[in-house]
Protein backbone atom coordinates (compact mmCIF):
# COMPACT_ATOMS: atom_id res chain seq x y z
CA UNK A 1 0.00 0.00 0.00
CA UNK A 2 3.03 2.25 0.32
CA UNK A 3 3.19 3.25 -3.32
CA UNK A 4 -0.58 3.65 -3.50
CA UNK A 5 -0.52 6.32 -0.79
CA UNK A 6 2.62 7.77 -2.26
CA UNK A 7 1.08 8.20 -5.69
CA UNK A 8 -2.12 9.55 -4.17
CA UNK A 9 -0.05 12.41 -2.78
CA UNK A 10 1.22 13.03 -6.29
CA UNK A 11 -2.25 13.64 -7.76
CA UNK A 12 -2.30 16.88 -9.72
CA UNK A 13 1.43 16.71 -10.45
CA UNK A 14 3.04 16.20 -13.82
CA UNK A 15 4.46 12.68 -14.26
CA UNK A 16 5.75 10.49 -17.07
CA UNK A 17 4.51 6.92 -17.16
CA UNK A 18 6.64 4.46 -19.08
CA UNK A 19 4.85 1.28 -20.16
CA UNK A 20 6.37 -2.14 -20.62
CA UNK A 21 5.79 -1.75 -24.39
CA UNK A 22 8.18 1.26 -24.30
CA UNK A 23 5.40 3.80 -24.77
CA UNK A 24 6.03 6.82 -22.52
CA UNK A 25 3.15 9.15 -21.71
CA UNK A 26 3.52 12.47 -19.95
CA UNK A 27 0.53 14.02 -18.23
CA UNK A 28 -1.10 15.28 -15.08
CA UNK A 29 -1.77 12.51 -12.58
CA UNK A 30 -5.56 12.50 -12.21
CA UNK A 31 -5.99 9.46 -9.99
CA UNK A 32 -4.49 6.17 -8.92
CA UNK A 33 -6.19 3.14 -7.38
CA UNK A 34 -5.08 0.30 -5.13
CA UNK A 35 -3.87 -1.74 -8.13
CA UNK A 36 -1.76 1.23 -9.22
CA UNK A 37 -3.94 1.76 -12.25
CA UNK A 38 -3.14 5.30 -13.34
CA UNK A 39 -5.36 7.94 -14.92
CA UNK A 40 -3.59 10.79 -16.69
CA UNK A 41 -4.98 14.05 -18.07
CA UNK A 42 -3.56 16.54 -20.58
CA UNK A 43 -1.44 13.73 -21.90
CA UNK A 44 1.13 13.76 -24.61
CA UNK A 45 3.16 10.87 -25.89
CA UNK A 46 6.88 11.44 -25.49
CA UNK A 47 7.78 9.82 -28.82
CA UNK A 48 4.80 10.88 -30.94
CA UNK A 49 6.20 9.73 -34.27
CA UNK A 50 6.52 6.19 -32.97
CA UNK A 51 2.94 6.14 -31.68
CA UNK A 52 0.87 8.20 -34.13
CA UNK A 53 -2.39 6.72 -32.84
CA UNK A 54 -1.77 8.20 -29.43
CA UNK A 55 -1.32 11.73 -30.78
CA UNK A 56 -4.98 12.65 -30.38
CA UNK A 57 -5.26 11.26 -26.88
CA UNK A 58 -5.67 13.84 -24.13
CA UNK A 59 -6.54 11.61 -21.21
CA UNK A 60 -5.97 7.96 -20.62
CA UNK A 61 -6.25 5.09 -18.20
CA UNK A 62 -3.22 2.85 -17.82
CA UNK A 63 -3.41 -0.60 -16.30
CA UNK A 64 -1.07 -0.82 -13.31
CA UNK A 65 0.40 -4.14 -14.41
CA UNK A 66 1.77 -2.70 -17.66
CA UNK A 67 3.63 0.19 -16.02
CA UNK A 68 7.41 -0.08 -16.02
CA UNK A 69 8.40 3.27 -14.52
CA UNK A 70 6.75 6.41 -13.24
CA UNK A 71 9.00 9.44 -13.49
CA UNK A 72 8.17 11.92 -10.76
CA UNK A 73 8.87 15.65 -10.56
CA UNK A 74 12.15 16.00 -8.63
CA UNK A 75 10.68 18.44 -6.12
CA UNK A 76 7.83 16.01 -5.46
CA UNK A 77 10.19 13.39 -4.09
CA UNK A 78 10.95 13.56 -0.39
CA UNK A 79 13.76 11.02 -0.32
CA UNK A 80 13.97 10.90 3.47
CA UNK A 81 10.24 10.28 3.80
CA UNK A 82 10.24 7.62 1.09
CA UNK A 83 13.26 5.94 2.62
CA UNK A 84 11.63 5.76 6.04
CA UNK A 85 8.38 4.50 4.56
CA UNK A 86 10.05 1.73 2.53
CA UNK A 87 12.00 0.59 5.59
CA UNK A 88 8.86 0.55 7.70
CA UNK A 89 7.03 -1.41 4.99
CA UNK A 90 9.93 -3.88 4.69
CA UNK A 91 9.67 -4.60 8.41
CA UNK A 92 5.97 -5.25 7.87
CA UNK A 93 4.89 -2.39 10.11
Amino acid sequence: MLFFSYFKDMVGREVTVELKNDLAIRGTLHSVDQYLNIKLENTRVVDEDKYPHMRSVRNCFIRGSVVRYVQLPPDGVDIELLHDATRREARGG
Partner: protein
Amino acid sequence: MSGLKFVAERTGDGAGQPFLDTDNGEELMHVQPGTAVVLGSRPPESPGTLYITSKQVVWLSDTDRSKGYAVDFLAVSLHAVSRDPEAYRDPCLYAQIDNGVEDGESEGSSDEGDVSSDLSRITELRLVPSDPNQVDTLFQIFCDCAELNPEPIEEEEEHNWIFSADQLENHEAEEDSEWMISQNSTHPIGRSNGDHDLAHNVLQLQINDQRFEDAEEMDSDSKNGHHHS
Protein backbone atom coordinates in the same frame (compact mmCIF):
# COMPACT_ATOMS: atom_id res chain seq x y z
CA MET B 1 -1.91 -14.24 -21.82
CA SER B 2 -4.02 -14.04 -24.95
CA GLY B 3 -5.02 -10.80 -26.62
CA LEU B 4 -7.92 -10.42 -28.97
CA LYS B 5 -10.04 -13.53 -29.62
CA PHE B 6 -12.48 -14.43 -32.34
CA VAL B 7 -16.08 -15.03 -31.20
CA ALA B 8 -17.93 -17.37 -33.56
CA GLU B 9 -20.76 -18.36 -31.23
CA ARG B 10 -23.45 -16.46 -29.45
CA THR B 11 -26.67 -17.09 -27.59
CA GLY B 12 -30.25 -15.88 -28.12
CA ASP B 13 -32.41 -15.03 -31.11
CA GLY B 14 -31.86 -12.38 -33.77
CA ALA B 15 -28.44 -10.79 -33.57
CA GLY B 16 -27.97 -12.63 -30.27
CA GLN B 17 -25.79 -11.92 -27.25
CA PRO B 18 -22.38 -13.11 -26.10
CA PHE B 19 -22.15 -16.14 -23.82
CA LEU B 20 -21.41 -15.03 -20.27
CA ASP B 21 -19.48 -17.08 -17.74
CA THR B 22 -22.17 -16.53 -15.10
CA ASP B 23 -20.82 -19.41 -12.98
CA ASN B 24 -17.73 -17.29 -12.38
CA GLY B 25 -19.74 -14.15 -11.76
CA GLU B 26 -19.50 -12.56 -15.19
CA GLU B 27 -22.19 -9.88 -15.59
CA LEU B 28 -23.23 -7.65 -18.45
CA MET B 29 -22.32 -4.05 -17.53
CA HIS B 30 -23.20 -2.09 -20.65
CA VAL B 31 -24.55 -2.54 -24.17
CA GLN B 32 -23.72 -0.01 -26.87
CA PRO B 33 -25.66 -0.65 -30.08
CA GLY B 34 -24.46 0.88 -33.32
CA THR B 35 -20.75 0.59 -32.59
CA ALA B 36 -18.10 -0.01 -35.22
CA VAL B 37 -14.85 -1.77 -34.37
CA VAL B 38 -11.42 -1.05 -35.87
CA LEU B 39 -8.72 -3.67 -35.30
CA GLY B 40 -5.21 -2.32 -35.69
CA SER B 41 -4.92 -0.73 -39.11
CA ARG B 42 -7.75 -2.79 -40.63
CA PRO B 43 -10.82 -1.06 -42.09
CA PRO B 44 -13.73 -0.42 -39.70
CA GLU B 45 -16.23 -3.22 -39.27
CA SER B 46 -19.92 -2.36 -38.80
CA PRO B 47 -22.73 -2.52 -37.99
CA GLY B 48 -22.17 -4.14 -34.65
CA THR B 49 -23.03 -4.03 -30.98
CA LEU B 50 -20.59 -3.58 -28.12
CA TYR B 51 -21.11 -5.62 -24.95
CA ILE B 52 -19.06 -4.70 -21.92
CA THR B 53 -19.12 -7.37 -19.23
CA SER B 54 -17.43 -7.44 -15.84
CA LYS B 55 -14.66 -9.55 -17.40
CA GLN B 56 -14.33 -8.68 -21.07
CA VAL B 57 -15.17 -6.46 -24.01
CA VAL B 58 -17.17 -8.19 -26.74
CA TRP B 59 -18.10 -6.81 -30.14
CA LEU B 60 -20.64 -8.78 -32.17
CA SER B 61 -21.55 -8.15 -35.77
CA ASP B 62 -25.24 -7.30 -36.24
CA THR B 63 -25.42 -9.04 -39.61
CA ASP B 64 -23.13 -12.06 -39.31
CA ARG B 65 -23.87 -14.29 -36.32
CA SER B 66 -20.56 -16.05 -36.75
CA LYS B 67 -18.46 -12.88 -36.48
CA GLY B 68 -17.36 -11.21 -33.29
CA TYR B 69 -14.31 -10.28 -31.25
CA ALA B 70 -13.56 -10.33 -27.55
CA VAL B 71 -10.73 -9.22 -25.30
CA ASP B 72 -10.39 -9.74 -21.56
CA PHE B 73 -10.00 -6.64 -19.42
CA LEU B 74 -6.85 -8.29 -18.09
CA ALA B 75 -5.32 -7.73 -21.54
CA VAL B 76 -6.42 -4.11 -21.95
CA SER B 77 -3.22 -2.22 -21.07
CA LEU B 78 -4.47 1.27 -21.77
CA HIS B 79 -7.63 2.99 -22.89
CA ALA B 80 -8.28 6.55 -23.90
CA VAL B 81 -10.73 8.88 -25.60
CA SER B 82 -9.58 9.85 -29.07
CA ARG B 83 -11.18 12.95 -30.65
CA ASP B 84 -8.59 14.20 -33.10
CA PRO B 85 -9.99 13.85 -36.64
CA GLU B 86 -6.42 13.50 -37.90
CA ALA B 87 -5.90 10.33 -35.87
CA TYR B 88 -9.33 8.92 -36.63
CA ARG B 89 -12.26 10.55 -38.36
CA ASP B 90 -14.79 9.95 -35.56
CA PRO B 91 -14.49 10.29 -31.80
CA CYS B 92 -13.76 6.84 -30.42
CA LEU B 93 -12.48 4.83 -27.53
CA TYR B 94 -8.92 3.75 -28.22
CA ALA B 95 -7.45 0.72 -26.42
CA GLN B 96 -4.08 -0.98 -26.43
CA ILE B 97 -4.07 -4.74 -26.05
CA ASP B 98 -1.33 -6.73 -24.37
CA ASN B 99 -1.22 -9.87 -26.51
CA GLY B 100 1.50 -11.43 -24.38
CA VAL B 101 3.78 -11.66 -27.42
CA GLU B 102 7.31 -10.44 -26.85
CA ASP B 103 8.69 -8.11 -29.51
CA GLY B 104 11.11 -10.66 -30.93
CA GLU B 105 8.61 -13.53 -30.77
CA SER B 106 6.16 -12.33 -33.41
CA GLU B 107 8.46 -12.60 -36.42
CA GLY B 108 9.34 -16.29 -36.38
CA SER B 109 5.85 -17.77 -36.22
CA SER B 110 3.77 -15.37 -38.28
CA ASP B 111 2.99 -17.73 -41.19
CA GLU B 112 0.34 -19.82 -39.49
CA GLY B 113 -2.44 -18.23 -41.55
CA ASP B 114 -4.93 -19.02 -38.80
CA VAL B 115 -7.48 -16.24 -38.17
CA SER B 116 -7.23 -16.49 -34.39
CA SER B 117 -3.45 -16.25 -34.37
CA ASP B 118 -3.66 -13.21 -36.63
CA LEU B 119 -6.05 -11.67 -34.15
CA SER B 120 -3.73 -12.36 -31.26
CA ARG B 121 -1.20 -10.03 -32.92
CA ILE B 122 -3.57 -7.07 -32.84
CA THR B 123 -2.33 -4.54 -30.29
CA GLU B 124 -4.66 -1.63 -30.98
CA LEU B 125 -8.43 -1.40 -31.00
CA ARG B 126 -10.90 1.41 -31.68
CA LEU B 127 -14.54 1.35 -30.70
CA VAL B 128 -16.58 3.93 -32.58
CA PRO B 129 -20.12 4.50 -31.24
CA SER B 130 -22.55 6.07 -33.71
CA ASP B 131 -23.41 8.57 -30.96
CA PRO B 132 -20.12 10.40 -30.30
CA ASN B 133 -21.43 11.60 -26.93
CA GLN B 134 -21.17 8.03 -25.66
CA VAL B 135 -17.38 7.95 -25.88
CA ASP B 136 -16.89 9.42 -22.41
CA THR B 137 -19.41 6.97 -20.95
CA LEU B 138 -17.51 4.08 -22.51
CA PHE B 139 -14.24 5.44 -21.12
CA GLN B 140 -15.68 5.53 -17.60
CA ILE B 141 -17.12 2.01 -17.87
CA PHE B 142 -13.73 0.74 -19.06
CA CYS B 143 -12.13 2.37 -15.99
CA ASP B 144 -14.62 0.72 -13.64
CA CYS B 145 -14.17 -2.68 -15.26
CA ALA B 146 -10.38 -2.45 -15.21
CA GLU B 147 -10.60 -2.03 -11.47
CA LEU B 148 -12.85 -5.10 -11.26
CA ASN B 149 -10.08 -7.12 -12.91
CA PRO B 150 -6.81 -6.89 -11.00
CA GLU B 151 -4.02 -9.31 -11.86
CA PRO B 152 -4.69 -12.85 -10.61
CA ILE B 153 -2.57 -13.72 -7.56
CA GLU B 154 -0.32 -16.24 -9.35
CA GLU B 155 0.28 -13.72 -12.13
CA GLU B 156 1.20 -11.12 -9.56
CA GLU B 157 4.25 -13.03 -8.45
CA GLU B 158 5.74 -12.92 -11.92
CA HIS B 159 4.41 -9.94 -13.81
CA ASN B 160 2.61 -7.52 -11.60
CA TRP B 161 4.02 -4.17 -10.89
CA ILE B 162 2.81 -4.40 -7.31
CA PHE B 163 5.11 -7.37 -6.96
CA SER B 164 7.96 -5.30 -8.29
CA ALA B 165 7.26 -2.90 -5.48
CA ASP B 166 7.33 -5.82 -3.02
CA GLN B 167 10.52 -6.99 -4.59
CA LEU B 168 12.02 -3.60 -4.02
CA GLU B 169 10.95 -3.78 -0.41
CA ASN B 170 12.36 -7.28 -0.02
CA HIS B 171 15.52 -6.07 -1.60
CA GLU B 172 15.59 -3.32 0.96
CA ALA B 173 15.15 -5.91 3.71
CA GLU B 174 17.89 -8.08 2.23
CA GLU B 175 20.17 -5.12 2.08
CA ASP B 176 19.46 -4.55 5.73
CA SER B 177 20.35 -8.10 6.71
CA GLU B 178 23.41 -8.13 4.47
CA TRP B 179 24.48 -5.00 6.19
CA MET B 180 24.10 -6.68 9.56
CA ILE B 181 26.15 -9.67 8.45
CA SER B 182 28.89 -7.56 6.97
CA GLN B 183 28.94 -5.53 10.17
CA ASN B 184 29.58 -8.76 12.07
CA SER B 185 32.16 -10.11 9.67
CA THR B 186 34.18 -6.91 9.87
CA HIS B 187 34.60 -7.70 13.59
CA PRO B 188 35.76 -11.33 13.53
CA ILE B 189 37.27 -10.95 16.98
CA GLY B 190 33.94 -9.93 18.42
CA ARG B 191 32.24 -12.91 16.83
CA SER B 192 34.95 -15.28 17.92
CA ASN B 193 34.60 -13.92 21.44
CA GLY B 194 30.93 -14.61 21.15
CA ASP B 195 31.60 -18.24 20.23
CA HIS B 196 33.91 -18.62 23.18
CA ASP B 197 31.32 -17.16 25.43
CA LEU B 198 28.81 -19.67 24.15
CA ALA B 199 31.18 -22.61 24.74
CA HIS B 200 31.94 -21.22 28.16
CA ASN B 201 28.26 -21.08 28.98
CA VAL B 202 27.76 -24.69 27.90
CA LEU B 203 30.69 -25.74 30.03
CA GLN B 204 29.27 -23.87 32.98
CA LEU B 205 25.93 -25.57 32.44
CA GLN B 206 27.62 -28.93 32.49
CA ILE B 207 29.48 -27.97 35.64
CA ASN B 208 26.25 -26.83 37.17
CA ASP B 209 24.69 -30.14 36.21
CA GLN B 210 27.50 -32.01 37.85
CA ARG B 211 27.22 -29.90 40.90
CA PHE B 212 23.50 -30.49 40.92
CA GLU B 213 24.03 -34.24 40.60
CA ASP B 214 26.70 -34.08 43.22
CA ALA B 215 24.37 -32.16 45.41
CA GLU B 216 21.73 -34.80 44.92
CA GLU B 217 24.20 -37.54 45.61
CA MET B 218 25.46 -35.66 48.57
CA ASP B 219 21.93 -35.16 49.66
CA SER B 220 21.12 -38.84 49.30
CA ASP B 221 24.48 -39.69 50.81
CA SER B 222 23.70 -37.54 53.74
CA LYS B 223 20.27 -39.14 53.95
CA ASN B 224 21.91 -42.53 53.75
CA GLY B 225 24.39 -41.27 56.21
CA HIS B 226 21.54 -40.38 58.48
CA HIS B 227 20.12 -43.86 58.11
CA HIS B 228 23.54 -45.36 58.71
CA SER B 229 24.22 -43.41 61.75
